């Protein structure tokens, strides 16, 4: 059977034949999903369903049909492609805005959760210290982590004393990176990033 896409609608009585009189048209452009799982209709009983299906998917489905007989009743097998309509630019923009707002909302919730209500703040590097204390040995904490955080705190205080807030923030970020690098965690992080990239590219 010559595979093709029949542009004609299925007749009401569902008496199509195998590719008979089918005008072959090229596959629709854009993102195309080939669907082998289109429903099979019983021509005798499901005429209304066939009509409804075709009406509903008029823009997206181009059909080729093939009738076959099972136990005396005719079935029509629909095969073809379902084309996902391309979203308009405005719709895409709306989706992006919605996504951004959602992320902003999540960040705001997290920040409000950790909001410092008493006005007392922990010194920089205390979280890193806690992480290291949990994962590393005392020797590593004493010989690697403590001097690293002590130096960072010194640099941070110097920056704050000079009223350079941005430098102070930068010192904290750099310290985080040094911390992960020092403990060999950067390799683990890299693995996760690679995994995330692979997952998102699929």
């Amino acid at each position: 059977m010559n595979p093709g896409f029949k542009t004609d609608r299925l007749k009401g009585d569902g008496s199509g034949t195998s590719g008979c009189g089918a005008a072959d048209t090229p596959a629709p452009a854009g993102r195309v999903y080939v669907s082998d799982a289109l429903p099979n209709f019983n021509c005798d009983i499901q005429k209304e369903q066939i009509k409804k299906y075709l009406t509903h998917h008029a823009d997206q489905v181009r059909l080729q049909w093939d009738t076959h007989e099972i136990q005396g009743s005719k079935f029509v097998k629909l095969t073809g492609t379902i084309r996902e309509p391309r979203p308009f630019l405005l719709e895409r923009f709306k989706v992006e805005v919605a996504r951004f707002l959602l992320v902003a909302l999540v960040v705001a919730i997290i920040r409000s959760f950790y909001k410092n209500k008493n006005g007392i703040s922990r010194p920089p590097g205390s979280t890193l210290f806690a992480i290291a204390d949990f994962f590393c040995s005392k020797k590593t904490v004493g010989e690697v982590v403590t001097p690293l955080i002590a130096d960072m705190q010194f640099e941070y205080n110097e920056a704050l004393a000079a009223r350079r807030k941005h430098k102070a923030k930068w010192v904290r970020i750099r310290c985080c990176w040094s911390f992960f690098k020092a403990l060999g965690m950067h390799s683990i992080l890299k693995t996760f990033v690679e995994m995330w990239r692979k997952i998102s590219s699929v």
Partner: protein
Amino acid sequence: MKLKSNKREEEKIPSLSGKEALVLDLLLNKPSAGMYGLELVNVSGNRLKRGTVYVTLSRMEEKGYVESWQEEPRPDAAGLPRKLYRVSGYGQKVYHAFQMAREAWRMRTLEAGGAL
């Protein structure tokens, strides 16, 4: 058993990597006051990295090339006291031996190059 292990320790030839030699070199320029990790990074001009300097220093301390002590906490300063490092006597000896070996190696290669 203990005597045997001590003998083995004595027989061990001290090893010095390029980074360790650099750290010793930098510390020997400021022998009395001592230096802290970030200072070493800044002085080295990007040859030492922030993430690795502490690991290197810890390894060198284990080998006995450097010794460390805590900075005395100042009343006006906040945060943890910094850890300062200076070269030990053994570290100085190893460094000088390393330099002599390097010089000898260079002379030997120059001679070999001349002969060729």
